[in-house]
């Protein structure tokens, strides 16, 4: 029995896990709660008649922190349906509309297909249609084989809190959590809007005047009544001692951030920069380069703004999960490209960095189910700003530098493939970027060791995450030493930069999502494996093609 750190992730006591053993609530029960919602929801699309903007920045406490209602709604709908808007009666409803309606006028929603079940095997096992992705609460709550699976999962968890679920059980448990979340919403239990003078906020009572007014406003689609309800709610919130209330500045900043989507605009601007660089050639090249600079700087500024908001809201460095680290690496890649470009003015750095940044940011923007973008409180083991900032920022910046080398190496190899000869200068740029990566990775690994030594005792324990970081470093060292030994030149270095980056992918993504063991368990997740594997295979194919082309034309590509 050797006690390992990962038990300290503390996640076993998140309410989400506690809810798995839920019992389907008799439907009559929550109907009863909703009976005072006298009039049935006439039709979801007519919700559009109301303006919810003023609800969006009302603070709510959820998951260990206080956040704007907008964020709560986005996150909750994402958890329920896997997206932040919902199609109903040919209209698109935004998260705030859906969640507010679920909360205030739940009747009818239990028949609406909005709960995501995307695991085909699970659908097959519990006898659901394979085609649709969404099912209604009623369908799922009445499904006996699903209920049986959920009981099995609960029993397994009761026997062993850390029981590893098989993929099918995991999928069932996810659906179970969605059902519990739905119940929490329609009963209003999880809509904890009221400061109580203690750590935990509470939900509004069934006869709360603000709640009744909001309901009236929503049912009658009366903006004035609805706004009066919001005003009453704000006043009720304001009664409690300020110490227990949300920080209004943080709520304002987070609402701003949530509405703005800075990282989405950033990739759009980077895309514009890439288009300028590639299309404006010849006489326009000078203008294209200028325009690209402007667009990249704009995107970069938006990323800075996004990070400033996240850091202000969370109070920590923005690299605590996969989503944040991907966005951060895109940022770092652009940062290094801008620095090098300012020195060398050669286009290659921008050309290399832009695709990397765009791909990373699009992934982060479009895969919210795999890359969780919400701000969670940190597990205790990470809750140390100094070490978190120095170690994780250094490591991820090294990944960013390597991503830049990947981009530059692609340009060089691409040139070889199309039969032109990369200049020695290009290889020198590649070498410069490699240096930054190697230095930062070495420092990052060592800082990790020092952090581990300081806070847990041991410096190095062959934990998969640290081992793969070391493997990546060794890989890049092989690339550099081989060049010194004269085993290969610039071309070999470019090939090596692409190959060694695969070990970065492994250290960054693979350990958390493929191996799934070790102490860095707080970053574990699942999903995206085919994409990652596809990436690696495409890269290997690309390298192989370049090598073949180079062999055929040794005279041309020789450096």
């Amino acid at each position: 029995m050797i006690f390992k750190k990962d038990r300290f992730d503390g996640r076993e006591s998140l309410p989400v896990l506690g809810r798995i053993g839920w019992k389907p609530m008799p439907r009559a029960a929550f109907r009863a709660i909703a009976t005072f919602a006298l009039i049935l929801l006439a039709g979801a699309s007519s919700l559009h008649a109301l303006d919810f903007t003023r609800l969006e920045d009302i603070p709510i406490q959820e998951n260990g922190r206080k956040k704007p209602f907008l964020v709560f709604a986005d996150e909750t709908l994402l958890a329920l349906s896997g997206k932040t808007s919902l199609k109903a009666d040919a209209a698109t409803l935004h998260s705030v509309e859906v969640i507010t309606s679920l909360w205030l006028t739940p009747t009818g929603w239990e028949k609406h297909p909005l709960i995501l079940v995307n695991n085909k095997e699970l659908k097959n096992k519990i006898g659901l249609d394979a085609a649709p992705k969404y099912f209604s609460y009623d369908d799922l709550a009445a499904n006996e084989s699903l209920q049986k699976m959920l009981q099995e999962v609960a029993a397994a968890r009761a026997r062993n809190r850390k029981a590893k679920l098989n993929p099918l059980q995991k999928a069932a448990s996810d659906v179970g959590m969605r059902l519990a979340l739905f119940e929490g919403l329609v009963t209003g239990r999880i809509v904890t809007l009221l400061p109580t003078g203690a750590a935990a906020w509470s939900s509004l009572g069934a006869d709360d005047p603000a709640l009744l007014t909001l309901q009236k406003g929503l049912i009658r689609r009366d903006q004035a009544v609805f706004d009066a309800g919001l005003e009453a709610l704000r006043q009720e919130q304001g009664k409690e001692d300020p110490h227990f209330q949300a920080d209004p500045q943080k709520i304002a900043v987070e609402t701003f951030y949530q509405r703005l989507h800075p990282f989405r605009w950033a990739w759009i601007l980077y895309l514009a920069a890439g288009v300028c660089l590639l299309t404006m050639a010849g006489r326009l090249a000078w203008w294209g380069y200028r325009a690209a600079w402007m667009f990249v700087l704009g995107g970069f500024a938006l990323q800075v703004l996004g990070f400033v908001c996240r850091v202000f809201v969370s109070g920590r460095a923005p690299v605590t999960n996969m989503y944040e680290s991907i966005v951060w690496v895109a940022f770092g890649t652009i940062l290094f490209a801008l620095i090098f470009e300012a020195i060398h003015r050669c286009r290659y750095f921008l050309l290399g960095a832009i695709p990397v940044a765009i791909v990373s940011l699009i992934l982060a923007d479009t895969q919210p189910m795999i890359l969780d973008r919400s701000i969670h409180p940190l597990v205790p083991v990470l809750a140390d700003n100094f070490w978190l900032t120095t170690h994780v920022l250094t490591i991820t910046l090294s990944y960013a530098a390597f991503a830049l080398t990947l981009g530059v190496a692609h340009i060089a190899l691409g040139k070889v493939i199309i039969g032109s000869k990369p200049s020695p200068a290009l290889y020198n740029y590649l070498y410069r970027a490699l240096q930054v990566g190697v230095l930062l990775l070495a420092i990052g690994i060592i800082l990790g060791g020092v952090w581990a030594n300081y806070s847990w005792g041991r410096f190095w324990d062959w934990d998969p995450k640290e081992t793969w970081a070391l493997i990546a470093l060794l890989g890049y060292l092989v690339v550099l030493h081989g060049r010194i030994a004269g085993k290969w030149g610039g071309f070999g270095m470019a090939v090596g930069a692409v190959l060694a980056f695969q070990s970065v992918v492994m250290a960054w993504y693979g350990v958390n999502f493929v191996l799934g063991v070790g102490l860095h368990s707080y970053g574990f997740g699942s999903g995206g494996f085919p994409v990652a594997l596809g990436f690696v295979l495409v890269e290997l194919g690309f390298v192989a093609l370049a090598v073949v082309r180079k062999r055929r034309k040794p005279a041309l590509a020789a450096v």
Partner: protein
Amino acid sequence: MSVSQATIPRAKMIAERQKRSVAWRIIHLLGSLQLALILLATIAVACAMATFAESSFNTKVAQAYIYKAPWFFVWLGVLCVNLFAVTLTRWPWQKKHVGFVVTHYGIITLLLGAMVGLQFGFEGHVTLNKKNPPVRQVTANRSIIQVESPADGALYVMPFDASIARPTEKHPRILPVPGTSFRIIVDAFSDNLVKEQKLASSQTGGPGVHLRLKSERMNQRIDMPLAMNGKTPHEEDFFGLASIILQPSLPQAAQSAAASETQMVFARFAPVVQSESEISGIRVLLSEDGSQVTLSGPDSASVTYRRSEILKSPLTYGPAVVMVEDYWPDFEMREGRPSTKSQVPNNPAILVRIQMPGKTAKSKPRLTLAPDGAGITYQLERNGAVYASGHAKVGDKFSLGWADWEAEIAECLPQALVISTTKPGPPSEKGEQGIPGFRARLESPGNPPSEPSWVESGNISSLTNGQNTVRMGYGLELRSVPFLLRLLNFEVPRYEGTETPSNFIATVEFEDLKTGAKKVRTAKMNHPASFPGTFAANITGINYKFSQAEWNPRDLGETTLQVLYDPGWLLKWIGSLGICLGIAMMFYLKPKSQ
């Protein structure tokens, strides 16, 4: 470092000396880039394989075959030689070599530090509870076998990790018992030993009941045989949440008994303390030969009695009443009951009961059973109040009112013993930890081999062969530290509105055994407590560090701290600094050459 035009005379000199001297040739060979590339590549590949092995098997496999395998250490040794030799090949060093030398020596220093830490340091853990007296032993992360040699009575210890290369009947491990011609043969291993308890009819036993407990929701079934020893009740614990007792007759309802504590005190081992409420804090010591009993307490002076004079007679000690209920000169568990092997005080033990008036017993839910003709009568209590009672015959079932648990009377015997046998259970699920153990037998010349028996980790077992007995223990090594450790307080703050811990804060008191000086320190997440914790100790690593490792959500007065003693700490720091500075110098501080 590539050779540029300006360094041709130097390159010539280096080439010349290789021609002249064999020593230089060897140095250049050892420091060659080819060797470096091979080393870097093989270490990287080996590590990659190890991580996959860890993912598909477990950490121990990866460590046994790669990370902690002898060949890997040899390889790292070769790496050090290569790193050192390559710096010599550049001799005499120039200004531009500073970064290069510092980096390479940094790696060597770091690896040296790691070796020092591995050789002279140790890692372990200790579980502290607010209610418990100070401890001075911690559990090291190393499993060992402990053997008591019959020749000199001394304890012998050897590292024994059977979970990797499992002993089998074909490949047994043979352990000679020091000082004797006996041998212990270990020929099977199990990760998950289970104790099977059975009720057996016996002339010497008291009434017995076999209770079968079932929960549909938990999908679990537990067999619980109970048998009284004469009129002595038999009490079993139910997951620490409730207790089940078989006694001659049902107790009066709502009886609030004074809290009592029992201590099984050994002359040579740590006592086993069981308490219904707070621990009394009274320490009972038994002399080596079992003749004297010493009582010491938190607020009373210690007193020593002759054991023979106080056996079975109550003593007042401070506010408590202490009674030595039983004595065994050569203690042994036989058929699940304490007994003595001989009248020679080889392993003296006493059973002490301490009554504490004024403190009432904490009331866990309790199921009391009493034999009643062909069946039993039962009574269920919570907080001293009876909420169910009745009569049950063999085959009857009744609900316990603890979640959905239900009890069934499987068997009733008028005279029975509970016989417990240890045997391998089904392989434990991935991620679950069973009790490991191995099968062993004792061989001595001139005797047929003894019956094999299963040795459970964390327990002491006796192997007997004819007249010869060898006592052995298996489990994680206990190490004494030069100070006493006591948990004063443990806090688990939570994130607002949730049960998610935001930190773990243990306040620990250290008492230096030499000087008696006491120091209070806190261990938080990311902020370990250290002892002695002085500046010099922190710098050199001659320091015991305690960091949070595990907590018990059911008992917030308990925490497990990881313990680390690492004299290689300073070397690791210096090495780390050297690597970082060296690389930076190599890349960015090159003197401008023409």
